[in-house]
């Protein structure tokens, strides 16, 4: 502290001395004084500090769609895969309000930061998407997060829906994560002290949602590990790639279906679900200046192994060993070809893979045809194009066309017009 004062005093004392040597010092001083006056006149008095000055930053996202589709979105399903129970249907027909997101964030003290993202759903409910604290002062590259947060697995998972390049999630996100994974738990990240961006993360959570199920066990129901690497390729290109693993223990993960004769049945799975995700994103802009033109390429590959037991209940419950190995991927690009305008294209594909179902192979009665969603050997695909127009950084209108072959033998042609507006604090967006 003493040294600091010495330092400041020395600086203060030495500057005028240096001037005094200058022959023009007097003239210079007068000029400076005049300039000072001019600047003072232009300058406003600092804003008064009050309690309100400590209010957190608040921003609000308004979204909505107008959509047409050739198949009823209410009856949407993705054949060959267990229903995730998440919000995975395409935009509802006609006009509909999207989720309005309220984001409140601030530094809590020098040690923690807090953030809440609440979604007001069009069904007049409030959903807590994220509510977490995050450490600021652990040091050595460590950051601890706790609460409910978007998991760090994959690439798109951690990005809020309003910042996506398409109106809806890619198919692999829909079938493997129910749209996205935001568990209640803790996350520890460590950033390596290298020029290459290299981070490692681990999460421990209760596993409250798909692919896990809510349960009242002590201890964690889900855990994950992820690593990301990234950097620049010259001044124009930046990249990030990652590998993630999520393991959950679903118990009685059930869904209602009908058998081949149309009778209602309930199917449920208990066991272990292991999901691998490989992701990459690459962004390019001439000289690194994204204002006029820029390009973004991203893709992710998912692979899931589930093993355990399946229960089939049409009045009489049957159980058998069940194992599945399924995968999926998507690749998308978005190009800003002039200020305000972007065009994008996306292709998604799911691979039904292999499903071993002892109820069928053991000849307990039901055949593969009675397990519509699980055992239809079908590989869903979807092609999507979009065009969006952003009058400013805070507003965006998007037209999206999709040819969705999620249902075996049926093509669903979808047209969606979407608006996204953000009010309030200028939010920072993840890479």
């Amino acid at each position, binding site marked *: 502290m003493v*040294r600091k004062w010495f*330092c*400041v005093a020395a*600086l203060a004392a030495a*500057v005028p001395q*240096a*001037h005094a040597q*200058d022959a023009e010092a007097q*003239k*210079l001083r007068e*000029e*400076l004084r005049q*300039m*000072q006056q001019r*600047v*003072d006149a*232009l*300058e406003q008095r600092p804003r008064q500090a009050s309690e309100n000055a400590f209010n957190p930053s608040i921003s609000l996202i308004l979204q909505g769609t107008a959509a047409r589709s050739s198949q009823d979105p209410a009856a949407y399903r993705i054949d060959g895969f267990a229903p995730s129970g998440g919000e995975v249907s395409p935009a509802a027909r006609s006009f509909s309000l999207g989720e309005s997101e309220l984001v409140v964030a601030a*530094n809590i003290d*020098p040690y923690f930061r807090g953030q809440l993202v609440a979604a007001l759903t069009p069904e007049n409910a409030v959903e807590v998407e994220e509510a977490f604290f*995050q450490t600021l*002062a*652990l*040091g*050595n*590259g460590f*950051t601890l997060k706790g609460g409910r947060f978007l998991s760090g697995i994959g690439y798109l998972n951690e990005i809020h829906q309003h910042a996506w390049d398409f109106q809806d999630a890619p198919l692999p996100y829909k079938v493997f994560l129910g749209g996205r994974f935001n568990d209640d738990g803790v996350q520890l*990240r*460590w*950033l*390596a*002290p290298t*020029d*290459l*961006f*290299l981070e490692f993360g681990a999460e421990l959570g209760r596993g409250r949602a798909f692919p896990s199920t809510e349960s009242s066990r002590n201890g964690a129901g889900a855990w994950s590990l992820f690593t990301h*690497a*990234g*950097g*620049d390729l010259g*001044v124009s290109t*930046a*990249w*990030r790639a990652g590998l993630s693993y999520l393991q959950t223990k679903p118990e009685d993960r059930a869904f209602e279906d009908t058998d081949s004769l149309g009778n209602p049945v309930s199917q449920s799975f208990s066991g272990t679900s292991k999901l691998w995700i490989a992701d990459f994103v690459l*962004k390019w802009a001439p*000289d*690194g*200046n994204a*204002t*006029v033109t820029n390009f973004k390429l991203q893709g992710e590959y998912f692979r899931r192994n589930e093993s355990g037991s399946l229960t089939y209940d049409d009045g009489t419950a049957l159980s058998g060993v069940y194992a599945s190995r399924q995968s999926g991927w998507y690749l998308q690009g978005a190009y800003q070809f002039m*200020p*305000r305008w972007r065009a994008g294209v996306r292709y998604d594909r799911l691979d039904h893979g292999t499903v071993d179902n002892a109820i069928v192979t053991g000849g307990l009665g039901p055949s593969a045809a009675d397990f519509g969603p699980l055992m239809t050997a079908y590989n869903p695909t979807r092609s999507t194009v979009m065009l969006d127009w952003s*009058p*400013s*950084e805070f507003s965006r209108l998007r037209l999206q066309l999709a040819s969705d072959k999620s249902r075996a033998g049926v093509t669903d042609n979808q047209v969606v017009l979407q608006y996204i507006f953000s009010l309030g604090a*200028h939010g*920072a*967006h*993840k*890479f």
Partner: protein
Amino acid sequence: MRLIIALALASACGPALAALDIFACTPEWGSLAQELGGDKASVYTATTALQDPHRVEARPSLIARARRADLVVCAGAELEVGWLPLVLTQSGNPKIQLGRPGYFEAASVARLIDVPVRVDRAMGDVHAAGNPHLHLDPQNISRVAKALAARMCDLDAKDASYYIDRELGFQKRWHEATARWEREAAPLRGLPLVVYHRDLSYLIAWLGMREIGTLEPKPGLPPSTAHLAELLAALQRTPAKAVVRSAYQDPRAADWLAQQAKLPSVALPFTVGGTARATDLFGLYDDTIARLLAVAK
């Protein structure tokens, strides 16, 4: 074994172990930090003069660099609001968080102009704290240099006298240069200009030039044809001497307007690295004034 020791010694004595690892948000502050820090500082500049400082992304490389930084030097006044907060929170580096000695905002010691009386996004992307492009006022550079040197002393007390000496040397050269620029730029007084964005306002205020229009209809919005047509009509009534833009701004709108209004279109470096001559802060000012003088005749 001997080789390993020799290598370890060599790397320990090399510039990689400079006392201060500085992360500068924009080239002007990177250049100033290098002026003051000399070989005691290793400076990483997050953006180039060809990048719009408002539209930087929290790239992985920036987060990796911020992880090791002792000091972050940025403009402040919300210029970096779209990316810096993310870089800071993801860096896992407590030294550079807001409110710590390792976090330095130029705007905290500079005098800001264009402080809006009320803030509303209908006015475009306005900054509540005032105009953040404060480095084209030589007085601000001088103020920031003084505060930044003091901060460097604070963070690296053992080299305090080194930073003080460098700061005094810089201030002396800067004051002399400022006086010279003011003499040279006398013909620019009253020069009417059309600018792209209000990023040259400090320069215009300092040299007594006049800004009579902006290519952006509102701050942060790209020029629109309707607005350019209005601007062209306005130029018939109030003629300008040149259409001026910064190196990172799209030349098309500026060139179109300049051609239609039969005016010269001038690209200013805006910051260090914006032109071949703008290799440091002195070169930045020299080249900026030279380019303006060329159209003032």
